[in-house]
């Protein structure tokens, strides 16, 4: 009767601990891997965007109508001067791709910062003060969630006119909902901790309690959401530009490049394949980085 675990191998604490540890370890390792891979690829793309003027073999805007739609290096009749070929206006595709990374990254990061500021301000305010303030902010969040992003973004971009700045502002003012929801519940949790009561009992003014006691303890979530929102914004910009209501020609937005290549889809499908792959790789890298950070900072939240 002393050794219950003998009959139930699954209840053997040692065994359970070991399998748990293996699982935990595996998650840690896979989390670190996805940070390494995602971060590495993202880092390479960031460097590419930063050093675009040095890396790009041609001017991304200079047209040469005599060299229209030259195929990339893996196809016949390629021109070694244009490794990834040229577009329908004879512009070097590789150069446009390299400069395009600037646009995607710029949109992703700026949008995530704007929406992050709006969303965390709302979420932390709602979570910290509760009561009526919380009710009002929750209502704002609910209203925002019941508006379809693409449709509203299209309508607003049409209103202000498509441009890089317009897209950043519009997406920034639309994509704050996830920050708000997560920061609200994280703040609700943190504000019930005794260290918040202790700070208030010391006479800490509210702004200081929020900034120095609450914020450092919820900022983890912010970083994780921010990476996902960067990816989200990059994809949305591509969609908007594809629909003609985002970044305007002749800027080399990857989404716009796909839109411009659409009419050549029949005979030159590589025109849309290349920017599409670039977009997917960038977004995948950002997502992997986000997944990795989330798993490392809070492995229990994985599922």
């Amino acid at each position: 009767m002393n050794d219950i675990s003998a009959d139930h191998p699954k209840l053997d604490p040692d065994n359970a601990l070991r399998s748990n540890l293996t699982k935990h370890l595996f998650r840690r390792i896979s989390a670190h891997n996805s940070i390494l891979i995602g971060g590495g690829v993202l880092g390479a793309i960031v460097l590419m965007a930063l050093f675009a003027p040095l890396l790009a073999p041609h001017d991304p805007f200079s047209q040469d109508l005599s060299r229209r739609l030259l195929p990339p290096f893996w196809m016949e009749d390629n021109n070694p001067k244009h490794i990834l070929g040229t577009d329908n206006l004879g512009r070097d595709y590789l150069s446009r791709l390299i400069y395009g990374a600037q646009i995607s990254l710029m949109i992703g990061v700026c949008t995530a910062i704007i929406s992050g500021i709006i969303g965390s301000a709302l979420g932390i305010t709602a979570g910290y003060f509760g009561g009526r303030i919380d009710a009002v902010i929750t209502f704002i969040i609910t209203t925002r969630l019941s508006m379809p992003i693409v449709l509203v973004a299209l309508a607003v971009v049409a209103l202000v006119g498509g441009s890089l700045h317009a897209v950043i502002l519009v997406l920034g003012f639309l994509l704050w909902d996830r920050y708000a929801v997560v920061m609200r519940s994280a703040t609700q949790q943190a504000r019930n901790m005794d260290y918040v009561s202790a700070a208030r009992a010391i006479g800490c003014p509210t702004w200081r309690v929020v900034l120095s006691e609450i914020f450092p303890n919820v900022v983890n979530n912010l970083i994780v959401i921010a990476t996902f929102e960067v990816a989200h914004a990059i994809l949305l910009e591509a969609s908007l530009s594809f629909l003609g209501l985002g970044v305007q020609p002749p800027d080399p937005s990857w989404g716009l490049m796909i839109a411009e290549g659409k009419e050549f889809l029949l005979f030159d499908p590589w025109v849309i394949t290349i920017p599409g792959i670039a977009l997917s790789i960038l977004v995948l890298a950002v997502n992997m980085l986000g997944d990795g950070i989330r798993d490392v900072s809070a492995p229990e939240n994985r599922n």
Partner: protein
Amino acid sequence: MLNFTVRRIVLVMLVALTVSVIAFFLVRLSGDLATALAGEDANAQEIADIKKIYGLDRPLIVQYADWLLSALRGDFGASLYFPETVGELVAMRLPTTLLLAFSGLVVSLLIGIPFGVIAALKPDSWVDRISMSIAVAGQAIPTFWMGLMLMVLFGLILRLTPISGDESWQHFILPAFTLGYYSTPPIMRLTRSGMLEVLSADYIRTAYAKGLKPLRVLFKHALRNAVIPVVALASVQFGHMLSGAIVIESVFAMQGIGYLAWESILRNDIAVIQAILLIVCLFYVGLTFISDLLNAWLDPRIRVS
């Protein structure tokens, strides 16, 4: 539960009202309706006349109230480009979009639920990891590009499906897959975690202990309980698909309200944009409401808070 429902209905009405205000003012700020109606080269007198005729010289609040009251009766005004009224236009185009969103939902459930169940039966196995990794990696692919690539592959190279349009059910295969694919990971994840929870519950162990066949236990007892939250999620996803349809429809040239919205935005056809914005938002609100009710019915704790 009644209490919760009533409170939710009040909230939903308020949200719907707010959204209608946003839909009206957002679009009205986008352009001068009178100039659009009168044409580019109209003179000031003509524009002033147009303003009088359409009541555009009244205060915006009055115009909003007027618009909302007519909209509630199904009268959304006239389009600038189509001979039909906006109400007729939307009624004509809505079925295509609903069908597309519905088939997208079916696709995501057909992929998401089975893989979620398999993943839950063998958690942390290779099936679990690989199906989840593929699903997550797929999220990185832009919808419109995925649609175009499928079009190239199945429509142009393999010639298995029509390339674009919405005339037959075959036309819906590629768009439905493109749309549905993006809702697969959340459905898979929720099915997996729901099944994991249910499978470890006492009554399932009892069912096994009674000697019931494993498959019978799985389908009759476990899946039935795990699937209700998935239905709640599916209702929210259906809303996302209505909104996602705008991109998909323009890729595949399907004449739904998404395509209509896009055309109208490009042409500044204000009455149509307002109507579609309002209708899609109302669908969203309604579907979220259904999902909330389902979740509250499942989990009494939600009702109280």
